[in-house]
Each structure stands twice: as C-alpha cells, then as structure tokens.
C-alpha cells in the first residue's frame, strides 16, 4: 500500500503546492471541455434544457468512486487516509440551498466561475468578485452564527456507514442510479427540445 503518495511521505508540503497547481490545470481543463465556462450551459440544467451538469457531475462521481474503490480493494490506495469532510448536517443543508440559489442566480458555481473568468466571461468575473465579497461578509458575521456553524456535527460519516450497508452495495446502487439518471436526463433533453420546437412553430 503506497498511496496516497503525499501521506506516505513521498514529497513534502512545498512540492504538494506544485501538485495542486498541476491538478488544478487538469480540473480547469476538464471543466471547460465540458462547457462549464458558459453560464447558459450550466443553468440549462435547472430549466431542463441542458442536463450536462448532471451528466458530467455524476459520471465524474462514478468514475472516481469506482476508481477509489478498486484501488482500495487492490491495496494500492489506503482509502482510510483520503480526507473525508466531517458532516455538519444542518449547516450543510442550509449551505446547499444557498449555494443552489446562488448558482442559478449567478450562473456559475465557485469552481466554474474561475474557469469562466479565465475564458473571458465578464459575468464570471463578477461572480468571483461576489464570492470574495460574500466570504468577507460571512467572516464578519461569523461570530454571530458560530453556534449554528458548529451544530449537528457528526464527524466523518459515509453513506455505507449510515445505511449499515457494505460499501460495494452502496456504490453499485449509486452506479445504477447514475445510469438511470442519464437515461432520464437524455429523455428530458429530448422532451425539452420538442417543447421548444413546438413553442417556436
């Protein structure tokens, strides 16, 4: 078992910043390839016209999820060393709602706003500025909401742990759900295109 490489001491903190840069390049490249530098494409998801967000996100989840599973099973990757964000249920749900609202209002999520800005989108740049401003406001009001911020802490919880099911079972369920979702998404896209054509005629 020799991975995650960083946690086995293969390289230090300074080199990890270079790794971060390299991984970031791949991340930004993949996002732009998918068309996520465009607010119109991204928000199409929420008007059921363009389901690319769902397709890309869940394909990535399935790919990385299966990859991590198999590398762990083969003993190449020590999955227990991969950082799992602890669960803070209420703040995460409220945060998710806020992020979703901000996403459809602003047109980008934080990651895609960076990519949009890089490809010249002025609205992407403005979202970035809004993010900075929002973080500052959050920091300033933080003492007031600190209680809520730390509430409902459950530590790192995995779905298999919460559902008391083996990891592979949950993963298989996720794969099936994703494939089903993709079929559904394609159907929705076709339906939406038909509807737009009908409205136009």
């Amino acid at each position, binding site marked *: 078992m020799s991975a995650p490489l960083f*946690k086995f001491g293969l390289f230090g903190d300074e080199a990890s910043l*270079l790794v*971060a*840069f390299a*991984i970031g390049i791949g*991340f*930004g*490249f993949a996002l*732009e390839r*998918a*068309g996520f*530098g*465009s607010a119109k494409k991204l928000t199409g998801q929420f*008007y059921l016209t363009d389901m690319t967000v769902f397709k890309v*996100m869940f*394909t*990535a*989840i399935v*790919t*990385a*999820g299966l*990859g*991590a599973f198999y590398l762990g099973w083969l003993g190449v990757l020590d999955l227990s060393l*991969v950082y799992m*964000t*602890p*669960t803070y*249920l209420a703040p*995460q*749900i*409220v*945060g*998710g709602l806020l*992020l*979703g*609202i901000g996403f*459809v209002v602003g047109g980008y*999520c*934080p*990651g895609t706003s*960076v*990519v949009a800005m*890089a490809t*010249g*989108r*002025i*609205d992407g740049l*403005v*979202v970035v*500025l809004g*993010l*900075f*401003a*929002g973080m500052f*406001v959050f*920091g300033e009001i*933080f003492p007031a909401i600190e209680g809520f911020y730390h509430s409902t802490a459950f530590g790192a919880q*995995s779905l298999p742990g919460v559902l008391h099911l083996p990891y592979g079972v949950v*993963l298989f369920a996720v794969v099936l759900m994703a494939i089903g979702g*993709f079929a559904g998404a394609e159907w929705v896209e076709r339906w939406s295109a038909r509807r737009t054509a009908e409205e136009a005629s």
Partner: protein
Amino acid sequence: MTTATDVARIEAPPAPRVVSKTRERSQAKPAAAFANPYLAGIGLGLVLLAAFVVMGRGLGASGAFSAFVAWTVDGVAPAHAEGNGFYQSYLAYGNPLKGWLVFEVLGMVVGGLVSGLLAGRVRPVVEKGPRIGTGSRLGLAFLGGLFMAAGAKLARGCTSGQALTGGALLNAGSWAFMLAVFAGAYGVAWFVRRQWR
C-alpha cells in the same frame, strides 16, 4: 436522374458572400463543439482520482477564495482578524496564500484558459439571455456570488469539494449537500428565468 430541385440548384448562382471584414475575422475560428459530457465527466473523475491517489484529498474551490479574504483582512486589520474564529482557521497555519487550494485554483485558471483557447471559446462576453440587460445580469451575478459564498462556507465546500469529492467518497453529508444544491437551484430557477431565456 436529375430532378427539378437539382436543376434549380445548378442554375442559381451561389449567393455572394457579402460579409464585413470584422465579422469575417471573428468568425474565422468557429468555436469547437463541447466534448461529449460523459467523456468530460470521465476526464474530470480521473483528475479527482489523481488527487485521491497523489494527495489523499479531493478537489475544491471555495476554500481558495476564503483563504484570500482571510489574508487580505489580516493584512489590513490584523488585530481584527485575530479575534475572529473564521479568519483564524486560515491564518493559524501560516500564510493562507500558500495553501493547496489557492494553487489549485490558479491552476484552474490556466487549465480553463488553455482548453478555451484550443476550442476557440475565449472571448470577452457577458453570458445572458435575450430578455435582460447587461447591468441587471451583472448585478444578479454579484448577488449569486454572495449567496454561494455563504452557502459554501456553511457547508464547508462547494460543488467541487463537497458534491464531486464527497460524492465519489460516498460522504453522507456531501450527498445531503448535493441534494440541497439541486433543490435550491431548481426551486429558484423559475424566478430568474428571464436571465436566461
């Protein structure tokens, strides 16, 4: 066997290309079609997997923004930053700009730009629908950023860190977050539809 339409096509001369010089230039490199979403998703998934294998962590974006804000506040008003738990969570470990996420986000700028250049998709533009003005669009963009900042910090991540990373690792809180994001977005979409359609 030539039909009537064939004859019509042969006889009618091709319409002269009366196109201004500037339009010709901007149309010189048509934007490439987007990649197949499933292939793009696999690529994204492999990048995420690489992060797992090399670093033992996933991707992220929002953390870089808050690191920068914490660094700025510390530079302008260090005493104020010291008393605030939020800023301290970034400042307690040394220079926040030397953080993994900051470098990752800088890489994202480069990667996004390279992909955009290769596809001819880089141009200064404001993405919006036909029924809204630029000013309103930019105003809403800023507002969206504000909401997302609050949401991302409460949830300890955004779609990159929580939904993608936590989703792949079957993190329970991340899946709850993901559902909430879609719920929030779908719920409000109708009200801002004029931005896009």
